[in-house]
């Protein structure tokens, strides 16, 4: 019988997202997968209350806290290797931590690893995973060859969180703070990321693509976004040219958004970008080229210059606003 273990990173403050991703991944794992351990790695700042709260959210009954001086993958790998059994399945979130851990653990234990997976399932003892390939154009199903199976989730996956358990959790703590740490990284300075201006939660987003042409064009579009009360996002060429900040990036490499309405302006509709907006309720594409791929991936399309249409839309919405205020 297989056991599945979950590995969560409490150095990051998005544990709930990690759990939701893993639950999304395992929705189809058959019932007979015996639940194993949830490993939660964090530092000594976690008090008993924090631990209790985190343990409650864990998808398994057995919870093992691994306490580290700092987030050092070598120390975590050692710990996981010590408790590993043949046939085990290890599940990780979509972050770079999850991806690194899945790959390294798979390799180190002579098992196999799969990253960025949308789905994992077990059939007759074989582990199958699904993931997007060919720059998000195709969904591939793979069979994993060797045990243990180390799987990390795709970005943007969401699954139902486990219900707070009736049964008591079994909590263990492994303290690794006094161990010898490899000294290959020193003088580390951490800067917290600025919040990305609400793209994740916005209900209306305007995404600018290479069709903005330059920094001035991107700035004009960002102002138009403000004028129509939408959040501004950008495609990869726009941020790679530094016409907009990196935290505006939409797509598989940036934010995966789910607004009610998304307008794309000067975006061709490459699958890597589209994966980031596909959960939008309604998509409007403005592109000069009626044959651009986005024109068949949007609900409504306008064939025209994106700056002109947005300027006009801003004026139209400002006028409506003024009329409404007057009527009030």
């Amino acid at each position, binding site marked *: 019988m297989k056991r599945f273990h979950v590995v969560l990173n409490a150095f990051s403050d998005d544990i709930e997202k990690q759990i939701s991703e893993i639950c999304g991944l395992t929705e189809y794992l058959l019932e007979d997968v015996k639940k194993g351990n949830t490993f939660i790695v964090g530092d000594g700042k976690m008090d008993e209350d924090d631990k209790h709260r985190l343990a409650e959210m864990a998808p398994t009954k057995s919870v093992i806290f691994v306490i580290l001086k700092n987030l050092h993958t070598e120390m975590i790998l050692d710990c996981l290797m010590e408790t590993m059994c043949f046939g085990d399945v290890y599940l990780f979130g979509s972050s770079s931590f999850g991806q690194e851990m899945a790959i390294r653990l798979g390799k180190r234990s002579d098992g196999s690893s799969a990253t960025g997976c949308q789905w994992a399932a077990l059939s007759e003892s074989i582990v199958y995973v699904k993931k997007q390939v060919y720059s998000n*154009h195709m*969904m591939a199903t793979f069979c994993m060859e060797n045990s243990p199976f180390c799987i990390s989730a795709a970005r943007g996956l969401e699954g139902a969180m486990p219900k707070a358990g009736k049964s008591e959790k079994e909590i263990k703590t492994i303290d690794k703070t006094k161990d010898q740490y490899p000294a290959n990284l020193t003088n580390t300075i951490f*800067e917290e990321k600025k919040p990305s201006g609400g793209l994740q939660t916005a209900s209306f987003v305007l995404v600018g693509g290479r069709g903005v042409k330059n920094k001035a064009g991107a700035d004009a579009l960002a102002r138009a976004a403000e004028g129509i009360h939408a959040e501004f996002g950008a495609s990869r060429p726009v941020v790679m040219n530094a016409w907009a900040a990196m935290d505006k990036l939409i797509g598989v490499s940036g934010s995966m958004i789910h607004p009610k*309405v998304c307008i794309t302006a000067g975006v061709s509709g490459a699958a890597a970008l589209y994966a980031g907006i596909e959960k939008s309720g309604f998509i409007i594409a403005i592109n000069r080229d009626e044959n651009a791929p986005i024109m068949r991936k949007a609900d409504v399309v*306008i064939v025209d210059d994106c700056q002109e249409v947005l300027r006009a839309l801003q004026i*139209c919405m400002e006028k409506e606003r003024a009329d409404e205020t007057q009527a009030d």
Partner: protein
Amino acid sequence: MIRILGSFKVVPDLDQISEEEWASDPANRIDTSYVKKILSCYDESGLEMMLKFSDESGDFGVPVQLDAVTIGRKMNENYLKTLYALGFTEATRIECEKEIQFWPEWTAGILSEFMNQTERYDLVVMGNRSADEENGKVPFLLAEELGWPCISQVVEIIPEDEAHVKVRYEVDNGYCTSVVQLPCILSIGDVPCSFLRVPTLKDRMQKGKKEIHRVKIEDLGISETFEGLQPDLSLVNLEVIDQSRPGVILDGMNAEEKAEKLYQTYLKGRVEL
């Protein structure tokens, strides 16, 4: 001297394939052989970052040698010639005419054998993933093969001294800057303004003609028929991801008319004024 190896992959430009073509492949095996080839975008950033590092290294009194390696067909040599023209010292193509896909363990195994057989390297720079496979596995697998540390999502590499580099990299909730002891593998994330620079015609003529080293896979002790080797993942099925939506065209005499229609018909009530 710090010796840096830049590893890159040449991939088909998948954005050039139309939706019909993705959907029409009967065997669900995509033939990308006819599609224009490009430098995988994260690898391109890595190569440009190596050049920037080398530009700055003089100020720190750290001599640097830049080398490059790629696994693939003869056409990849055009990129190696460009790298020579840009000042790279040694450029190697590991010859492989076959299209090997979904097998990052194989790529990492070959690169590790190549590194064991060549001179000492202090740093390997590579993109964090390629467009066609999207595994992000090669840098970590190579690190495991070599027993080296690997830092991923790197966005800046700054010279420090002959045994260390300073690296800025993205982590889950922010950015870290650390001094890293060599040897190490750096896998490159999204870095603004990291398009590979274009060599001058003079440099192409003078430096771009240097001989490219060619290595056969068998010479690395790996059988070309891949006997005894197996990928972690075996492909069972491929399906097209259907992203289509109705694409209703909004007509009008000019941008103003279209914008007005857009607001009145589709946005009013859907978005807040």
